[in-house]
């Protein structure tokens, strides 16, 4: 019995320890996979720099609860107007399932995951190209979720600020710019 209790205690506690295993982040181009979950680079930068969003992004977070019966598990959000590139972060998407108009950050905060992005071309008779000659599309986010996340009140936020990031790799940045790549791409590549 004593040995059994000892083994159970050890397993429970080692399990508790392993739940704190750190994330593995893989990035290629604008896509980031964090422990298998896919984000855009812009989304991940916001999550990374906000400890609460980091918690939110992890499965098994204390704030994550199962979806109550009758609540939607899938939804979609579409831009209100046509764009010739993926819209900026402050764009509010019109969402189904009673979600209303949400930015991408708000969509993530509510526990939704963007499974993929669909481009919807204009119907016949509508303007098909932007003034700079790029094709216009509506952008539709296809969402799913397995949990409901409740963001803690501000008072519950960790008092410890996130550690300061080392910043930009200046030699990498100059090398990248020197090879003729765009500044936007180089700044994205050369951040620690």
């Amino acid at each position, binding site marked *: *019995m*004593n040995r059994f*209790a*000892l083994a159970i*205690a*050890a*397993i*429970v*506690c*080692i*399990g*508790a*320890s392993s739940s*704190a*295993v*750190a*994330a*593995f*982040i*893989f*990035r*290629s*181009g604008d896509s980031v996979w964090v422990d298998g979950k896919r984000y855009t680079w812009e989304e991940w930068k916001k999550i990374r720099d906000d400890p609460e969003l980091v918690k939110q992004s992890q499965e098994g977070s204390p704030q994550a609860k199962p979806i109550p019966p009758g609540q939607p598990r899938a939804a979609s959000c579409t831009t209100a107007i046509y764009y010739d*590139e993926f819209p900026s972060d402050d764009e509010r998407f019109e969402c189904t399932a009673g979600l209303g108009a949400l930015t991408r950050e708000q969509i993530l905060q509510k526990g939704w995951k963007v499974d993929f992005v669909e481009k919807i071309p204009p119907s016949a008779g509508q303007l098909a190209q932007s003034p*700079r000659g790029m094709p216009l599309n509506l952008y539709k986010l296809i969402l799913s979720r397995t949990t409901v996340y409740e963001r803690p009140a501000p008072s519950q936020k960790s008092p410890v600020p996130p*550690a*300061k*990031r*080392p*910043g*930009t*790799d*200046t*030699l*990498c940045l*100059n*090398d*990248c*710019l*020197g*090879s*003729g*790549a*765009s500044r*936007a*791409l180089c700044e994205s*590549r050369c951040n*620690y």
Partner: protein
Amino acid sequence: MEKRRTRIAGAIAVGIATAFGLPSQVAAADGDTGLQFYGHLDLSFDVLTKGIAEGGLGQNPPPTGKTGWQPDISSNLSYFGFRGDHDVGGGNKIVFQVETQIDVSATPGPSPVNQASPGNIDNKVQGALASRNSFLGLAGGFGAVKLGKTDAPYKLSTARMDPFSATIGDYNSIMGNTGGDNRAEFDTRLSHAMWYESPKMGGASLSALWAPGQNRSAVNANNASGEPDCTGGGGVGAGDCNDGSYGDALSIAGVYETGPLYGTLAYEYHHQTNRVGDEGTTPTGNVGVADEAAMKVGVQYMFPTNTVVNVILEKMTRKAPNPDFNERQRTGSWLAITQKFGDANEVNLGWGHAGKTPGQPGAGDSGVTTNPGSVDNQSNMYTLGYKHHFDKKANWYAVYARQQNHAGGHYDLGASGHGITTDCKDALGKCFTGETLQGVSVGMMYSF
């Protein structure tokens, strides 16, 4: 019963200690790890001529082979790599990078001999893993300390000021290029190096690198220990490193950047550079082994009209035993203007100027470089380019470049980046001075 409770409590305590009591040790091994895969592809179709117009009489025989217009397909500074970081706590990270050149259009193999001098053996394989900037280091609020190999801070400090980088109009045909060959000694990657990169302090930052010579030869005539080639290129072998092989290298760059202004001041030093190979038939010791250095100041400014102006002034020096034989000391300058039209289009203009050297070692293959002494070996490079950006990752470009050498000059096109370089040499490797090289190139780039 009491004893049993005590044991269970002890077991739980051990388990808790396992889970929570050792985080200071466990946490260090469990920090976040980020890994990024990235790359850059640049290919072009070029047509160039060496413009050799001289030759035909006495000591100045005509060139051998085809020296006129030649089309080619070139892979230019294409590479891929992975880089990442591993959180070790306290805001510090282990940082790493492994980057490799990829020869997309040519067959991968040892470096093409025309990157240095024809006839030189070069064991360097550009397409081998970690052939480009690769390192392991520690980064934090203090900046970063790294070990490995990298483009020197001196080189990178002005890399962004060359809108013709890796094209046939790359500024390295003149800038950082002491002898005018397709080897820019002061625009180089330094292997077996350690360096420090400071954080930005109100717009200012500093990078400093030291690469030990690690050479058992007293005159740096051997390969550096652990390296397949002479340091600085130009051959391979024990005792044969006499075409620019040097010992310790030091490279420092200070940068100030705020809003539309970017300015830099940089210095690089190569200890005891062995150029005995240039002595040819001249009395021994006139060229010899001597320290070489370079310094430059560069300014980039973006005007509200979306006009970017780049200016670089450079001074390269060699403490030569006899100035009459010194072709490694001169001034250089670069002026480039980029006019952007919206986000997608830009037109680039460039002018590079190489000043006259105190002398030259003689033994040249033709014309005025047959005998040592002072000659007019200045040169001017003119470049014109257009670039269309499809988006932030892809573009296509067209470039015209023209290198106008004075009578004793033999500056080339495409040094330090363009896959196929064009130099002063005919099919037998004889160098003709005073030629006007020119060419056009159309290519495309994709980065991720």
